[in-house]
């Protein structure tokens, strides 16, 4: 009973304890994993730049946006530890982000940006 109360009120502590059982430190990822993630991000960046020089037709814009979102989410999830941290941080950040994207899309639509 006492354990469940403590874990309920300290979710991040419970997650850290779980992470320690797998021999991982602090936030669940090792230095080696961080390096691998950075290499993946560098590869995606290289892909973004190269797609600007080759003609891929109508796939150009969606491909660029998908790669941008992939990089964004990877950095936020792993480097900013959002994947391993308390979910309220995820909620706060993505709520602010979604609000910003929505508001500015509406603003851009007002100026007929998307119909050009």
């Amino acid at each position, binding site marked *: 009973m006492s354990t469940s109360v403590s874990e309920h009120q300290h979710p991040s502590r419970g997650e850290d304890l779980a992470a320690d059982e797998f021999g991982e430190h602090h936030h669940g990822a090792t230095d080696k994993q961080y390096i691998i993630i950075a290499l993946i991000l560098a590869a995606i960046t290289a892909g973004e730049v190269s797609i600007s020089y080759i003609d891929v037709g109508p796939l150009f814009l969606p491909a660029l946006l998908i790669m941008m979102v992939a990089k964004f989410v990877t950095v936020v999830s792993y480097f900013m530890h959002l994947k391993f941290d308390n979910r309220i*941080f995820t909620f706060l950040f993505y709520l602010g982000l979604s609000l910003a994207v929505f508001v500015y899309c509406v603003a851009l639509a007002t100026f007929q940006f998307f119909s050009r």
Partner: protein
Amino acid sequence: MSDAGAGRPADEKTPGEGAPDLGNEPADTTNTVTETIDEIPMGGVPEPGATPTVDTGEERTHLTDMPEETADRDAHGGDAGTTGISNNKLAMWLFLGSECLLFGGLISTYMLYRGRHSGSLGPDQIYDLPFTSVSSFVLLMSSLTMVLAVSSVARGDIRNTKLWLCITALLGATFVGGQVYEFTTFYREGLGFTTSLFSSSFYTLTGFHGVHVTVGIIMLLALVGMVSRDRVTGDRSEVVELVGLYWHFVDIVWIVIFTLVYLIPA
């Protein structure tokens, strides 16, 4: 120097010390207030119907019964209050959420005005994509070194923490240097701040980002100084993580700017 107070308890007041004695207060006011404060449990006033807790030396079953060192700190050493979440980290995430609105506004303004450069230099004529790609790579790698600094401080490895923080600041300075070079080149080619709506929105957006990176570098260097003086140890190690959050945010903003401003043609 008077030794009139020698031999008295530290909290005992005599007429003439501290608040003026108006002569109409009961003699035991100080003791009464102290006892009342002692009766209030940690975590604030209890809710109606809540079971009062008495420290009997038995197993602790409530968060507010935890020792002070544990109850007020989360697993990462931050001030956790009664929610189990670091207040500092919560504030940083809220700040970053609000920063999304700032950069969202600047990016939207640029998107609207990037085609407004009648007769003057436009995005397609002026951007140097290979140079900006290298700058982006440098900033991306600075995120790696920053996360390695956070990882090092979590392990208590002070030497590597300082090393990674210094490398992160160096990479950040390289990025800012590249941006200054880019601005200088654009200006010499005839693209001033007021040349067109495109140039104004471009300089404002990338300039604001550059200022954020510069502030991040200052914070990193301050952090190196704090670590060197052993002021970021144990419970205070969370400050490295908070600066790291800010730095990664600056990186993700550049990820968006790089794609929307530099890679997508006007």
